[in-house]
């Protein structure tokens, strides 16, 4: 079963469908036209470039280049996760990078070594495609996780200090915030796992089936990828919070204000 290639001209026809969002946006003045065009353009350019790049990557299939490219992907993912929080990128980039790298490489290698019978565990097809899938999800989880953790700690500082004054250890005082943020970060992953197959026929599976594989194989890969996503997401979220805590919370157990991007000066209660 060969996948039917789509002629470029026909693909252009897909873009004709964009008339619909265009029309809706005009009618209801959604002010989305600008971002509709830039997002579509960016997607096309980025995918075209990556398609070209992947072609060479797959042909070349050099372990170092593959691992190197995955590292580049991790850097970009970490950067966007950290940037969406209110913490300065320079302060927590390294700890976040360490946790993303560990979570991604650990899970991908586990799959490539023990689960998928690969001759070359650095095979681009698996390393980069699986890695990318995990990273995309870790990224989403971490955006929620880091932001929630530090935002809650900051807005809830009165209560946090109260708990410290009760004699709580660092771990005891921070645990409720860690718990909340990890739960929130994992919610989408768990929800999509629970409705898998019924509501969602996920991208991975669609891709594998369109790519000519048997639905049986597609389902096996889907199970594998969902477990991998869950494991790498929770690992990276928890590790990122634990490792960034060392930078963002001082030895007195107090959240440092200078790590925030809109750092207010030492501003604590003076009455």
């Amino acid at each position, binding site marked *: 079963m060969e996948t039917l290639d789509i002629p470029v001209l026909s693909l252009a026809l897909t873009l004709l469908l964009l008339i619909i969002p265009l029309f809706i946006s005009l009618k209801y003045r959604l002010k989305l036209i600008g971002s509709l065009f830039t997002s579509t353009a960016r997607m096309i350019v980025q995918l075209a470039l990556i398609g070209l790049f992947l072609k060479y990557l797959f042909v070349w299939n050099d372990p170092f280049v593959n691992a190197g490219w995955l590292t580049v992907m991790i850097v970009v993912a970490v950067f966007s996760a950290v940037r969406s929080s209110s913490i300065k990128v320079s302060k927590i980039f390294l700890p976040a990078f360490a946790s993303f790298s560990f979570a991604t490489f650990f899970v991908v290698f586990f799959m490539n070594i023990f689960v998928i019978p690969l001759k070359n565990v650095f095979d681009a097809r698996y390393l980069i495609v699986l890695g990318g899938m995990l990273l995309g999800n870790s990224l989403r989880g971490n955006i929620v996780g880091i932001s929630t953790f530090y935002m809650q700690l900051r807005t*809830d500082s*009165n*209560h946090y*200090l*109260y*708990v*410290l*004054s*009760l*004699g*709580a*250890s660092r771990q*005891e005082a921070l645990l409720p915030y860690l718990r909340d943020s990890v739960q929130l970060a994992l919610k989408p992953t768990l929800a999509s796992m629970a409705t898998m197959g019924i509501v969602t026929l996920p991208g991975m599976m669609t891709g594998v089936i369109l790519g000519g594989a048997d639905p049986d194989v597609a389902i096996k890969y889907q199970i594998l990828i969902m477990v991998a996503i869950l494991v790498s997401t929770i690992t990276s979220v928890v590790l990122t919070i634990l490792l960034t805590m060392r930078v963002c919370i*001082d*030895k*007195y*157990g*107090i959240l440092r204000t200078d790590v925030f991007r809109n750092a207010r*000066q*030492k*501003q*604590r*209660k*003076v*009455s």
Partner: protein
Amino acid sequence: MAVIEFRNTHLSFNGKSVIRNLSLNIDKGDKVVVSGKSGSGKSSLLSLVLGFIQPDSGQVLFDNIPVDERSVWDVRKRVACIDQDVSLGTGTVHGLLAFVSSLKANSHHSFVPDKLMALLELEDDLLHKDIKDLSGGERQRMAIVIAVLLGRDVFFLDEVTASLDKHLKKKVAGYFTGREDWTCVIVSHDPVWLDNSVVRVFDFEEKVWKH
């Protein structure tokens, strides 16, 4: 023997000095009312001892040991603190009590709030209420109950009587000043504390003892 000591302590916020060259001894059993205009930085005295902020220069000592990043964790186990805008968190009052007693530092105490709640005229069914449904006065009294249940003998009371009525103010002030072995540092404008002969008043702005 001094329980709390400030030695030439200097503290500033945003370049504005809040505490200048403060030297102050608070001995065991002392009941000290810190008086001064609001906004003058009285509460920062308590924050300094609890290590929530650090002095720019000088020292803060607790039991003759400088408060630093290591000793501060023990200080927080020795002091019970009630703040005017204490935030008890979310969930039920019962849940809060369970959390407080689950902390390692407090695990050797039994947390039976009944008597204290009765003394402060809080109904039993309050335990099952949500913290956010309590009135300001109820929240304040609940914070007092918890602080006393911690079984500690150094108290930081920051405007604790602010949202109580006259008769309860008197009760609370009498309760804390009546215990000889308790050391109390009281930040308050309330004259109810001053009726008592055991209380010493420290003028925070002039940095002198008034009586």
